[in-house]
């Protein structure tokens, strides 16, 4: 599933909004929205996400529903450092299945 940044950018483009327009309509700064779309280090408040969700016509929960879940216990998970933990569960499962067949 897509990250917050990807969801936000896709929705904005679908609505045909520029960063400028979304910034004006949501009351957030243009550079802040760009950071949300392009940097995954941002942790926006519920208030800000609600402002964006309102303009983009989605429920705020759309942005947060597949947040990072608890790490899994399998040893493969530990061996996978870095962005493995960032893959969603479906992708992890797909990858794990492929690796398990390699004996």
């Amino acid at each position: 599933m897509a990250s917050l940044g990807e969801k936000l950018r896709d929705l904005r483009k679908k609505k045909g909004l520029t960063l400028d327009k979304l910034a004006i309509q949501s009351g957030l700064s243009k550079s802040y929205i760009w950071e949300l779309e392009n940097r995954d280090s941002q942790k926006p408040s519920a208030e800000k996400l609600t402002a964006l969700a309102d303009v983009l016509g989605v429920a705020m929960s759309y942005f947060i529903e597949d947040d990072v879940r608890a790490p899994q216990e399998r040893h493969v998970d530990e061996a996978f450092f870095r962005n493995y933990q960032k893959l969603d569960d479906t992708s992890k499962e797909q990858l794990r299945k492929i690796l398990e067949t390699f004996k």
Partner: protein
Amino acid sequence: MSSINLTGPKAANQINKLLMAFTEAHHTSRFPVDVAQLAVDCHEIFGWKDPIAEVRSANIPGFEGCLFPNDEKSKWLLLFNEQLGALGRVRFTQAHELGHYVLHRKTQDLFQCASAADMRNLSKDVQNIEHQADEFASFLLMPLDDFRKQLTSDINLDLIAHCANRYGVSLTAAALKWLSQTTQKAVLIVSSDGFINWSWSSDTATKAGAFFKTRSATIEVPSGSLAADVSVQHERSGKNVRMSVWFPHADPGLSLTEMKISSERYGVFTLLLLPSIANVWPTSRFA
């Protein structure tokens, strides 16, 4: 051959010598390098007993590539996402994972590679390993001697595109290669929606103060630049732009050459060429 103290460029050059001899003997084409085939043959080049037994695509969303051993570590699997982008990007990912095999497989069990966005959050050690694998990939796919032979005119984006095409890599990879070996003051900038995603400067440009710290700040593309001008889609040979547009502390009388290629998918790709006398550090208040 020993793997002790192999650096990315050294290891890549060893492989390249063999590839050159092989392609000359068999009259096959030298470029682009067939990385998947090379990965499977690589253990023979170095006389290693744990081959990459298989190179396979795994088109999983969010995944780039990984190198994975079996339980006995007697063989390795190189996985890559072939839907990651254009062919050049995929080839570079394969070469990067091969770099982990050649350089790092004895030190870490599994290499799965992060996206550019994740790189910012990695620890120094991991970044170092990633950098070495990238360097290996760059030297494997674009050997320096052959690369320099391609530079038959002043640099422009057509020439970079020619190199990207010859080596089967992305425009970005070819531009970074050029930047890594040039003595010119030059800066590559990739931007989207009016802000800089990331940027890379040649050594001489960095020393002259011409760089952008995109990790610590969000930097807007300056108005007055070609990059900010949406009416210009491409400018491959370059236009003169006042240097102070990009660098506020530059001599107001000086210009730089700005080149541009833009696309819906990859955003705006900009190359700045500064005059050799350029110095854009702020003037010291104590001078």
